[in-house]
């Protein structure tokens, strides 16, 4: 029987990793191939395929690193793209393999090779590089998306807010109805993506140096990262966050000049784009003298805490980045770490199940704190769902680049959530919130998706029952 083996000589020369943003050989070799990560990996659980597991993906990186295969490998490209970067594997890895770092570097390698025209553009990881004229053009929708994500939009918050404004108009004007009916979205490949759009709030929060005073005696002073989508589509969550902090004797500052955290860029392999945004934020938050830099979106928090790593090769910024990251606290982490103002919490007689955002549970290892906060609300019943920490399939722009796998995982998550019979699914990340709401809407289920801070805010606003 003839044997087809990957190490047979092939006619095309292999494209190796290049020096810039090369995945670390040391990190790759920390993997001892034990396989304990397999059961935590959403794509492995869905497919059962070894190459779709963290161990398999690291094996592929190792193969490129050792020159046995090259960046042109379709399996390599596909697997680097199919990974959700949820980092559940990292949290369970006994050897402490820093998987996120080597995955993001591998994606950067693919993007660099695409930019240089060495490999053709393929669906999956979008990039901001112009299409190579020698290669077939990308589909229209992908180009539009790439432009939106990696072009100017996320880098200039003014533009971003203007764009979001037009989307509000789109939703409210009836254009959405026409677009849905006419099938134009399907034509553009945007049908799946469009159901994800949140019912946008008309409000927006633009950080201009506002200071929200602490209620009662000031215990702490913090600066809030307002971000991109959180400051527009989820502006109400920021308002809730500010009110909850104020209730806890915390003064909140919204430093001007800050922008998107760059998570979508770094996760997508556009490390330089991420670095550019990181520098903007570091500069905006430096010298404020605050006790903490607060973030209420899990995905952003994970990235903000890793600015030190992102800029490790930049001598002018590395130390400043490390200092910045040290101050970053996820809102749940912060609230659970101070003495929570329980006296002012009012009763909320609701059943809630908690969906753990990957970048909270795995990237930041914050799992107990959100639950502790939910349990602090009088009357609230927390019903644990099966596979709470298995990715919901949102993963940044993953539900746009890998719609099929995203839909499978979204369905799996919502099935698990609905099985609890809870009236509310609580979470702490915009991607998860959109993904869950989209799937619930598709199923016509009347279950709410709320941020934990929104529930805390509601409880505070209700206030304690007057003493009998």
């Amino acid at each position, binding site marked *: *029987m*003839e*044997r*087809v*083996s*990957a190490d*047979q000589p092939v006619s095309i020369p292999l494209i190796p990793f290049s020096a810039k943003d090369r995945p670390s050989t040391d990190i790759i*070799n*920390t*993997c*001892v*191939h*034990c*396989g*304990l*990560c*397999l*059961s*935590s990996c959403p794509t*492995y659980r869905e497919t*059962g*395929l*070894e*190459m779709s597991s963290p*161990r*398999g993906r690291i*094996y*592929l990186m190792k*193969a490129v690193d050792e020159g*046995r*295969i090259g960046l042109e*490998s*379709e*399996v*390599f490209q596909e697997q680097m793209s199919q990974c959700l970067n949820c980092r559940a594997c990292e949290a*369970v*890895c*006994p*050897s*402490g*393999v820093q998987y996120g770092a080597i995955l993001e570097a591998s994606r950067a390698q693919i993007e660099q090779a695409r930019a240089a025209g060495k490999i053709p553009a393929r669906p999956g990881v979008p990039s901001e590089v112009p299409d190579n004229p020698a290669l077939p053009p990308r589909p229209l929708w992908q180009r539009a998306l790439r432009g939106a994500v990696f072009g100017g939009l996320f880098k200039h918050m003014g533009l971003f807010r203007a764009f979001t404004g037009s989307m509000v108009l789109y939703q409210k004007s009836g254009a959405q109805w026409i677009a849905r009916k006419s099938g134009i979205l399907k034509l553009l490949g945007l049908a799946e993506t469009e159901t994800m759009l949140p019912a946008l709030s008309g409000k927006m929060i633009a950080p201009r140096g506002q200071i929200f005073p602490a209620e009662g005696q000031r215990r702490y002073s913090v600066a809030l990262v307002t971000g991109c989508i959180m400051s527009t589509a989820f502006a109400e969550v920021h308002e809730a966050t500010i009110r909850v902090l104020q209730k806890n004797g915390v003064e909140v500052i919204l430093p001007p000049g800050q922008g998107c955290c760059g998570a979508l860029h770094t996760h997508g392999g556009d490390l330089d784009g991420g670095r550019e945004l990181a520098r903007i934020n570091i500069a905006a938050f430096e010298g404020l003298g605050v006790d903490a830099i607060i973030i209420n979106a899990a995905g952003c928090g994970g990235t903000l805490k890793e600015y030190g790593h992102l800029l490790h090769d930049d001598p002018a910024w590395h130390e400043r980045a490390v200092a910045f990251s040290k101050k970053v606290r996820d809102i749940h982490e912060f609230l659970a770490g101070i003495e929570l103002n329980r006296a002012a919490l009012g009763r909320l007689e609701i059943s809630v199940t908690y969906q753990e955002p990957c970048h909270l549970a795995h990237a930041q290892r914050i799992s107990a704190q959100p639950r502790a906060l939910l349990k602090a609300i009088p009357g609230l019943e927390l019903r644990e769902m099966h596979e709470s920490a298995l990715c919901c399939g949102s993963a940044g722009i993953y539900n746009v680049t890998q719609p099929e796998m995203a839909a499978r995982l979204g369905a799996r998550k919502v099935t698990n959530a609905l099985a609890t019979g809870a009236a509310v699914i609580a979470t702490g990340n915009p991607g998860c919130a959109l993904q869950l709401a989209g799937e619930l809407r598709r199923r016509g289920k009347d279950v709410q998706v709320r941020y934990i801070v929104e529930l805390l805010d509601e409880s505070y606003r209700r206030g304690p029952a007057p003493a009998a």
Partner: protein
Amino acid sequence: MNRTQLVEELRRVVGPGGVVDNPHALMTYDADGCVMDTGEPHVVVLPTTAQEVSGVVRLAARYGVPIVPRGAGTGLSGGATAISGGIVVSTARMDKILEVDTRNGRVLCQPGVINWELSQYLKPYGYQFAPDPSSQKACTVGGNIANNSGGPHCLKYGITASHVLGVELVLPDGAIIWTGDGSPAAPGYDLTGVVTGSEGTIGLVTAAWLKLTRLPEALRVVLALFPDIAGASASVSQVIAGGFLPAALEIMDRLAIKAVNDMYRLGLPESAGAALLIEVDGVEDGLDALLDDVTAVCRRNGAIEVRPARTLEEQNQVWAARKNAFGAMGRLAPTYYLVDTVVPRTRLPYTMEQVGRISQEYRLPIANVFHAGDGNLHPIILFDRRDRSQNQRALEAATGVMHVSIEQGGVISGEHGIGVEKQDYMTLLFTTDDLAAMAGLHQSFDPHDLFNPGKVFPKGRGCGELAALRRAGIEWSALKGA
């Protein structure tokens, strides 16, 4: 015969989404948890039913191609590695729990169900699947049956063989049989017993009735710290000799503690040369008294401190550290060789001393994390695979441990199976007659040697040859090296 045609026919059996034949994808299947031996399969299939497995097996028989079953690929002896190519049959998509029958104390499930998830599923019923290998968060029930896996709690509850009531088996000719209906004490040959621990060499399990074990009413976990491993080992044999039956008795030595201390925030002192993890379980009444008796034995043997894990969280922490210790070795060295042998408990202190001597002799650090209660050693030889000399010394050190274990009246595998890793050590333990008896049994199931070939039996010698040696009255060991 050609591969393209085989792949085409396999697609017809399991569907196009159930076949992997891209060479780069196949590369990721070239090893399981043991990377000492590698081999790429020609093709991987992911069936979902026994009928599909049977179809695949019939094709393999027609094409004369090996079948290699694979669960999660966490095994440590190369049992799931396609060392001579062929079809890897992955059970990853046969992951359903089919029926929980509490009245008869049994659960029916497919082989790809993850061990830990089975126990989680059974928890609300008040039951568990007792065998709990350290890899239980990822390993599958099918792999447990194939390797007759053990685990920390097997000290009290017995290894996998004690928990398999009957299996659905696809034989090498494609026939599907049940070895039992899940009721105990069936008449006839104990085929369930034959299958358990056969490492995929006589058939492929497609479903199993497993025994339910009641969750204990209460349990206690403590860590006893010793200045050295001798005191910890001595305590273990005295505890057992004293008639106590803890749920688990596990030892970690200084190097192992170093690997897990930070990751699992154990906060163990540098002065601890060994930690003995003790778990007792049962009815609440009397449990504390039992624990006092056991810890008193430890103190008499020089324990410097006894730390109880009071909360569930603390208990989980301690257990996570113990169970993930192997994986955590990546923090100490790029490669490890995990040796799995058993010695009589009373021989533990001497054997551990010898392991220390071997470490010095071959100039390689050896960490120890093991099921002390069962006398099941797990010396972990740390080395760098890229260094040829270290590679060689690691293999020699492992052989040294095997020899010491057998000299002390032990065996060469506690629970990880033989696979390819230990096949050449079989002759240290078994006579040619022993091996030939096993080979004869194997041949009656798999006459063409297509089920996980090249495993378990000594390398390069087929079962037919073993049987011939026996007839000629020649000792296998006499031929070694010839």
